[in-house]
C-alpha cells in the first residue's frame, strides 16, 4: 500500500461525493456518482477486498450509472432545488 496514492484516491472520493450531491445538472451528478463508485472500487482493491472491489466496479460504476442516466433521460435534466 502506497501512502501517497491512498491519500490521492481518498481525496478524489471526497471531491466526487461532494460534487455529486451539490451539482445542479442531474446527468453530471450521475456521472460523478459513477466516478465516486470507481474511486471506492480502487480503495477496496488497495485494502485487499478484491471481491468487494469487483462488485463495486460492476454494480456501482457500471450498471447503476446506466440506470441513473436512463432515469435522467426520462426527467428534466436540471434539478429544481
Amino acid at each position: 500500500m502506497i501512502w501517497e496514492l491512498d491519500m490521492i484516491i481518498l481525496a478524489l472520493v471526497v471531491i466526487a461525493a461532494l460534487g455529486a450531491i451539490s451539482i445542479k445538472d442531474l446527468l453530471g451528478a450521475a456521472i460523478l456518482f459513477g466516478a465516486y463508485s470507481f474511486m471506492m472500487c480502487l480503495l477496496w482493491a488497495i485494502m485487499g477486498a478484491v471481491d468487494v472491489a469487483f462488485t463495486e466496479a460492476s454494480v456501482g460504476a457500471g450498471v447503476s450509472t446506466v440506470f441513473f442516466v436512463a432515469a435522467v433521460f426520462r426527467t428534466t435534466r436540471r434539478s429544481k432545488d
Partner: protein
Amino acid sequence: MGLTGLLLIYATDDFPRWGDPASPASTYLSTRYIEKTMEDTSVPNIVTAVLADYRGFDTMFETTVIFSAGVVCFFLLRIFKNKSDEEGLFRHRTTGITLRIRGVEKISYSMGEFDRIDKHWTPQDLIITTACRLLIPFIQLFALYVIAHGHHSPGGGFQGGVILGSSIILLAISHDLRTVLMRISEKEAGLLCAIGVFLYAGTGALCLLLGGNFLDYSVLSKILPLDPVSARSFGILIVEVGVGIAVMGSMVWIYGNVSSAGNYREGL
C-alpha cells in the same frame, strides 16, 4: 450535519488499526473460516465459501432483494395501453417500398426483410453497432467465467450476473430496445429473475428434504456421486448460477422499464 460528520470522524480514532491481527473482528470468527474453509468445502476463495455456504441465508435474501427491485420497477413504471389503432411504417429492405400498417402493436418484432421506420425509429451508427457486436460475445464469455470461476478467484454470481446483464444493456444502447426484446422478451426477463431465486431457495429446500439443514449442501452427496465436501463445493456452484440468472434477469428487466419509461417502445 457537519457536526455529526466530525463526531463520526473523531470516533474512527477508536477503531482497531487496519490489518491488526488482535482486533475483535479477526479474533472471533475469521480464524475459524480461514482454517476450516478448505477442509469443509474445498473452496480456495474463502469469501465465496462464506457468502454462499456459511452465510447462505444472507445471500439468498440479497437475491430476493434484487428480485423485488425488478418487480417494484415493473409495478411502478410499466404502462399498458391499448394502441391497436396506431400506425406504423415498414420499409422493405431490398425494394425500398414503404407500407403503412394499422395495429402495429400486434405485429411481432421479427419482421424479416422489413425495417420499421416510425417516429421511434432512429438510424444506428455503423461503427458503434459493429464494435458492440464484436465486443458483446467476449463480455458474456467473461461473465460466465466470473460465475463459474468464483470458487477460485474473485467474483461469483452477483458480479457475473451484473456483467451478463450489462452486456445485454450494451446491446440495447448500441442497437435499440427492440433488438433486445427480440432475444429476451419482457416476460422472459421477469421469468429468469424468478427462476434464479427459485434455484437458490430450491437448493436449500432440497437439502431440507434430504434430511439436512436448510442450505446445508453436504447432504447433496446422497443423490450425487460426490463426497460431502465436494457436494458443498457443488452446492455453492448451483447457488452461484442461481444468483447469476436472477441478477441478469432483473438487470435487463429494470433497464427495460426505466429506460423506456414503462412503455417498452424506445430505449435510451
